[in-house]
């Protein structure tokens, strides 16, 4: 499998047309390798969620190229893209998104069974995935009987079960207290060190610090200390998000992502 799990080249995403046109992303280049975790920070409306949705094949770039595990997501048909998602991409959300009627083990088995894997093998994969996040004894529990930290660890197991190597995490610690959040980051980190690639969208610098590097989004542009200063327009987007906390952070509000 390619060492580059995710590659964005000149990715632009425009919503709407004409006067109401909104440039959610403007020529973004980003590469995430296996064994690497990249944090994405930026105020509301800076394009963080759009970036994650494009990486996850939930949205299509207006121009530019998105490759997951060496495959061009944009040129893939709907079926191929769905297969790409099931085999290579795992999502983790702030609110865990576990199926309440299924046990931890069953939740982790779902993507494998959807992919046609026999239940016995899926169960074995799920057992391994749960053990990798320290939840081997919780397989029979239902989400309602778990703490937030436990539920999020199950969600991480589900995101990385089987052959999936790209983990896209959208504020995964947002609903957790700081000690539990740290425990979840520790698990994420361990999965990345075991060879997964991680993209962590967060507004919390302390959490971003768990990544190997941090990129900053400003009005659809990736900025770092060496690039030109962002435009006044992009800064206004930042001003709107002063204090930028997740609770009132609709981000780009792009539909999808299975919410």
């Amino acid at each position, binding site marked *: 499998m390619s060492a580059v799990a995710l590659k964005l080249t000149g990715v632009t995403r425009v919503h709407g047309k004409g006067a109401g046109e909104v440039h959610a992303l403007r020529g973004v280049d980003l590469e995430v390798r296996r064994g690497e975790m990249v944090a994405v920070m930026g105020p509301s*409306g800076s394009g963080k969620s759009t970036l994650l949705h494009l990486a996850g094949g939930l949205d299509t770039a207006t121009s530019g190229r998105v490759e997951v595990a060496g495959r061009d997501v944009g040129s893939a048909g709907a079926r191929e893209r769905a297969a790409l998602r099931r085999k290579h991409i795992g999502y983790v959300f702030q609110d865990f998104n576990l199926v309440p009627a299924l046990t931890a083990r069953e939740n982790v088995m779902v993507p494998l069974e959807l992919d046609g894997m026999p239940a016995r093998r899926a169960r074995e994969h799920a057992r391994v995935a749960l053990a990798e996040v320290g939840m081997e004894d919780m397989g029979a529990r239902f989400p309602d009987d778990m703490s937030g930290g436990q539920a999020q660890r199950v969600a991480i197991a589900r995101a990385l079960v089987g052959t999936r190597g790209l983990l896209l995490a959208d504020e995964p610690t947002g609903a957790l207290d700081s000690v539990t959040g740290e425990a979840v980051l520790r698990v994420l980190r361990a999965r990345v060190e075991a060879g997964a690639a991680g993209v962590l969208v967060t507004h919390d*610098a302390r959490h971003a610090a768990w990544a190997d590097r941090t990129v900053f989004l400003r009005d659809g542009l990736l900025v770092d*200390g060496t690039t030109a*200063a962002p435009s*006044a*327009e992009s*800064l206004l987007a930042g001003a709107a998000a002063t*204090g930028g906390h997740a609770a009132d952070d609709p981000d*780009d*509000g792009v539909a999808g992502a299975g919410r």
Partner: protein
Amino acid sequence: MSVRHALLVLLSERPMHGYQLRQEFERRTGGTWPLNIGQAYSTLSRLERDGLVAPVGSDDPDAPETYRLTDDGTEQARSWWDTPVDRGTPARDELAIKLALAVTVRVDGKPVDVPAIVQRQRTATMTVLRDLTRLKREAGDDLAWSLVLDSLVFAAEAEIRWLDHVEASVVRAARQHPERAEQGAPAPSSATARKTADRKGATR
């Protein structure tokens, strides 16, 4: 940092000589603030002068002088625990001073590029925060070291939040007083302001 008080509370455990004090101080604070041996001895001699410590005395003339707390020293050590650390007079902070100057100074008649300064600092502080986080992950169950690291982690995090605030405030100021361009951010034209409003409308 009051080395004086740190040495007093270490001596409240047991009598020690200067080199031991230095070792204990560094060990218990994770070596974050190195204390040179000269400073340890000069602090000890000032404490002796002030009657807070006294030499224990030894039969061995070659042994380094070991010090114990006097009653006054014991009292001072206790009162350090009981008294909050004075935060009333902030230390001189180069970053705060730099940005305060950046929003007012004009170079060759032009405002300083504040957003660029903010972003460079953000990247640098983020790198520090990442390194601290890595140390923290490896700190294991060494509570003292871990708490010292936490203190540095929270300070770096606070700095990044403050930088976000600076960035937003500069833009807001430029928007409210476009005629005063010295805030460092180019004043947005009404067209861009409208476009921003459109974006907000479109994303809800």
